[in-house]
């Protein structure tokens, strides 16, 4: 080799050797990269969630990652070199028979092998867990097996999730509610069996269609609102709406919608649960209508309702109930507090009734007064019903209350009115009875007078006396009837006054003229006091004379004979004031307000002095008021006299002309009787004419005009027959009869009650008093003859 060639070769060697160094460096770099890559792979295997086991070609374990160590319970150090079947023991979950190891099969067949389903891995400690796995052979470049890689994972969680999903799917499938899902575009994705039932579409018909298939046109806006809320991640719960079923049938549903999100939390759709509430809705409608009707009825009846919870003792009230009880809104109430509002007089009775009703399980109804906090008192009607727990204890009471104050007031008014009507009716009956009596009283002497005239046996003076008597009685009847007519006219405002300029003295004189005979007959002393100057005013002279005549007649009647009567006329304050005062029987204080009422007599006592309809004072009041005046009565008390005062306005006042009739006293003389008879009658004329008739019939007649006189007369003359008027002054006929019957001499005689009172009660009372008969005036001549003829033959001693 030449020198240059040697140099060339050295240089070449140098370069080659330098290159060798760089090549080595490169190889080392590549090896580092490989190492790094291997480490990455190792770490990847160690970090991978799946368990990894690799084997050699003989199926012996070479490598386990951490997950495989954990699942098998074999650490790498222990597992390395072991047969795979020792480390990786698997059985069938269903048969528990050993399962062929997939890695060994992969080695044998040279292909990827997946594990059979339902495989259990038995760990080194014997614990079991379900796994999924697959195995792949590792082949060399010429295809020869180098080993196998087994990858497996614990699927316990997945199994549980699958079971849960299966359960959920079963629940969805068997749910009574329609459950469906849809995309945000509204495309239906799932559809359970209940959805088929509710909406009528099969899953095949519904899935893939838009949800608007179910939405009525007028409710399409709802979907946009639902979608907007879903996109905000919100749920829609129990949204009640209407949807369309197949065929257009409308279905009421309660809709709950939840957003469906992907794994990144984005809303990608919605799940809907729809409950068919059509039946409930109908029931609600019926219930609501019922409640509305009830509320209307409650409102119409102005009812308030309340309830009491026995557990909490709390009361609750409707607004109307609060108003009725006067409870301020918002105030809490207990039952005892509510009871305290009940009037103390009604509280206990009401509670007893409520307790009795609730104890027997029934409803109660009670009325009581409520005293509101402000003191106002109202009547309420309370109706309630108790509610009971299973053990029978009362759980509460609910009820309604109604303000019945107005009804109670009306009832009270009605009751008062009824009493007034009853009183008026009673007075009317009494008046009619009195009217009959008063009309019969003159008829008796008239009949007697007529009988006397018919017999013609009496002398001329007796006949004249009889005619006078008959005239007076007839006048009396006329006056009675006129009074009745006047009262009727005044009541119906049909009385026409004949006014003229009259003087007060003329009026009084007319009155005195009319009453004078009666005053004289009674032996009364009359004092008249008139104003000094003339008092003239516009009035009906006749009517005002009637007023004062009535007042004077009243004094005459109710003043025992020999009494005193004052008439005093005066002018005060533009009024003519005329008072009539007597020393009569007076008027009880409590009767004073009613003395001017129609048909009113202080006491329809049998002791009344004179007859009369009891309309005189009513007539006075009506006539005075017709003249624009007033009349009042005063009395210090019973037996202390009475004062009537009339005020008559002097301007525009009326005057009246009294129409008085002088009643002439008639004296009747009777023929001597064959029977000894006592006639007791406060009607002097009636007694006298009857006595005369008896005497004309050949009997001996004696007359008495009051009860006491009658007893004395009977005791003295010992008659066979007593004709006893019942209503007489001093002592009534019945008491006189009792007194007579109590005496030995009074028992044998015949006593016949002779009265204008002919009602059954009157007959019973006379019989009870000892009367043998009861004749109603006027007595019939034939009755009298028959009575006399039936008297015992033996005379009374």
């Amino acid at each position: 080799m030449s020198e240059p060639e040697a140099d060339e070769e050295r240089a070449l060697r140098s370069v080659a050797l330098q290159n060798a160094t760089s090549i080595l460096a490169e190889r080392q770099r590549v090896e580092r990269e490989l190492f790094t890559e291997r480490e990455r792979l190792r770490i990847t295997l160690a970090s991978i969630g799946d368990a990894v086991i690799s084997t050699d070609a003989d199926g012996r374990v070479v490598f386990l990652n951490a997950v495989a160590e954990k699942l098998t319970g074999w650490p790498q150090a222990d597992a390395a070199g072991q047969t795979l079947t020792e480390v990786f023991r698997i059985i069938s979950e269903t048969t528990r028979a050993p399962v062929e190891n997939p890695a060994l099969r992969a080695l044998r067949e040279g292909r990827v092998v997946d594990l059979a389903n339902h495989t259990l891995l038995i760990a080194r400690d014997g614990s079991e867990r379900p796994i999924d796995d697959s195995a792949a052979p590792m082949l060399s470049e010429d295809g020869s097996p180098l080993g196998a890689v087994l990858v497996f994972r614990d699927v316990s969680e997945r199994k549980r999730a699958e079971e849960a999903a299966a359960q959920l799917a079963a629940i969805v499938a068997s749910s009574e509610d329609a459950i469906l899902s849809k995309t945000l575009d509204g495309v239906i994705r799932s559809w359970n069996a209940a959805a088929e039932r509710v909406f009528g579409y099969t899953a095949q018909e519904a899935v893939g269609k838009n949800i608007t298939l179910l939405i009525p046109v007028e409710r399409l806006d709802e979907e946009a609102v639902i979608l907007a809320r879903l996109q905000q991640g919100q749920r829609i719960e129990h949204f009640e709406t209407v949807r369309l079923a197949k065929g257009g049938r409308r279905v009421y549903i309660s809709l709950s919608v939840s957003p469906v999100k992907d794994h990144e939390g984005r809303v990608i759709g919605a799940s809907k649960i729809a409950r068919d509430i059509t039946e409930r809705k109908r029931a609600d409608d019926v219930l609501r209508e019922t409640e509305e009707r009830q509320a209307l009825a409650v409102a119409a009846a102005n009812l308030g309702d309340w309830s009491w919870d026995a557990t909490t003792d709390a009361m609750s009230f409707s607004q109307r109930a609060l108003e009725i009880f006067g409870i301020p809104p918002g105030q809490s109430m207990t039952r005892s507090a509510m009871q305290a509002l009940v009037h103390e007089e009604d509280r206990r009775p009401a509670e007893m009734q409520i307790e009795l009703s609730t104890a027997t399980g029934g409803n109660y109804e009670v009325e009581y007064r409520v005293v509101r906090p402000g003191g106002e008192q109202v009547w309420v009607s309370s109706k309630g019903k108790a509610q009971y727990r299973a053990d029978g204890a009362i759980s509460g009471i609910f009820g309604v209350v109604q303000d019945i104050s107005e009804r109670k007031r009306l009832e009270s008014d009605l009751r008062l009115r009824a009493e007034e009507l009853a009183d008026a009716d009673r007075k009317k009956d009494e008046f009619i009875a009195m009217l009959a009596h008063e009309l019969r009283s003159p008829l008796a002497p008239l009949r007697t007078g007529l009988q006397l005239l018919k017999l013609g046996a009496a002398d001329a003076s007796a006949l004249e006396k009889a005619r006078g008597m008959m005239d007076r009685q007839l006048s009396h009847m006329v006056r009675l009837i006129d009074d009745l007519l006047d009262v009727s006219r005044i009541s119906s405002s049909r009385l026409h006054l004949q006014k003229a300029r009259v003087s007060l003295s003329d009026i009084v004189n007319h009155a005195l003229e009319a009453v004078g005979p009666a005053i004289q007959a009674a032996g009364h002393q009359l004092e008249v006091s008139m104003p000094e100057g003339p008092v003239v005013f516009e009035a009906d002279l006749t009517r005002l004379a009637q007023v004062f005549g009535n007042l004077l007649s009243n004094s005459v009647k109710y003043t025992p004979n020999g009494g005193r009567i004052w008439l005093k006329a005066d002018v005060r304050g533009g009024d003519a004031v005329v008072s009539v005062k007597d020393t009569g029987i007076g008027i009880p204080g409590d009767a004073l307000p009613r003395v001017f009422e129609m048909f009113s007599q202080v006491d329809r006592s049998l002791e009344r002095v004179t007859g009369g309809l009891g309309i005189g004072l009513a007539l006075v009041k009506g006539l005075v008021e017709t003249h624009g005046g007033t009349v009042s009565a005063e009395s210090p008390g019973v037996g202390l006299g009475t004062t009537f005062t009339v005020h008559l306005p002097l301007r525009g006042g009326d005057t009246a002309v009294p129409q008085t009739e002088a009643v002439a006293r008639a004296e009747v003389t009777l023929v001597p009787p064959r029977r000894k008879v006592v006639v007791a009658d406060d009607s002097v004329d009636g007694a006298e004419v009857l006595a005369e008739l008896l005497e004309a019939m050949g009997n001996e007649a004696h007359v008495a005009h009051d009860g006491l006189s009658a007893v004395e007369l009977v005791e003295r003359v010992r008659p066979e027959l007593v004709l006893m008027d019942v209503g007489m002054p001093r002592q009534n006929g019945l008491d006189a009869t009792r007194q007579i019957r109590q005496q030995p001499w009074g028992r044998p005689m015949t006593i016949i009650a002779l009265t204008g009172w002919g009602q059954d009660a009157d007959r019973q009372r006379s019989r009870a008093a000892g009367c043998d008969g009861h004749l109603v005036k006027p007595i019939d001549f034939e009755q009298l003859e028959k009575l006399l003829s039936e008297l015992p033959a033996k005379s009374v001693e």
Partner: protein
Amino acid sequence: MPSAVTIPTEPIGSIPRPPTLIAAIAERDGADPSLDALYDEAIRDTITRFEDTGSPVVTDGEQRKYHNFWTYCVHGLANTQPDGFKIPFAAGHVRRMPRLTAGPFRYGCYADAYLDVALRHANRPVKQAVISPSALSLMYPAETLPGYPREQFVRDLLDQHVGEVRRCLEKGAHAVQIDFTEGRLAVKLDPRGGLLQSFIELNNLALSRFSSEELKRIGVHTCPGGDLDSTHSADVDYAELLPSLFRLQAGNFYVALAGEKDPARVLSIIREHRQPNQRVFVGVVSPIDPRLESAEEVRDRVLEAARYIPVEKLGTTDDCGYSPFCDDTSTSRDAAFAKIRARVEGTALASAVLAR
């Protein structure tokens, strides 16, 4: 014993260029576009004649490697100088490598460009030969290039080589053959084997980037060099080379054997060091031997090899290219194809024998 045995046979690569082409290249630069028609014609003719030999695998005869098999990819690069190392041949002439003067190192052309043309003409599978990275590694000078360290050069070299091979595979090359004739040269330069080991490592770094499937289509060719009927390292004992050679991760080895004085010894070494997955194509004709081998001769060589190498891992080839250097006209195209035909026929005969 298999009922049908087909021993694969493949060419090494180069076929002498037509004289007109050689003359034209001599007159002009080999890259002159005006030569394209000549190149194309030469390739078409080469492939046609290749196929006429019955060779199941053909090449383009490396007609466009207008300089040589070694520097085709770096010839004429701006960052090279032609004053690189000289490769001395036994006949006394030298071939000179270009010298890298600056980085970065990039190929001027890639062999897959040749493959594109060959595939247009071929009716049979086409094999493509590329130069090994270890051969090109000698371009970097002894002195470190400023701004371009040797390590970076090595990485660039590997990238360029791997890219070239991968593109050939992807374009459909039946096989890619890496010419590693410098293996025996390395032993010659460094009898202790250090240089050879670094060449092996460098080439393995490249091979490690391929998958096992790809490696089945990649082979390494080693020979003592053949240029102008001369070698550069025929004096190097295969025993020094082959143990290291079979450490290469390639799937195929094209080993010159016909020119060896003691083929049996070489086959013994192969048998001893071949890895199970490695197929060995033994050289059954010698391009530098002016004598035309007969088919029977070839047959016998195959049968002898079959005694050392499993038939399924045995193949036949030429000992070397017939014209690794463009201007080598020591062997005529006719002679080359005659030898190829002998290889093909002899291999078939052997297959028939082995099939019995």
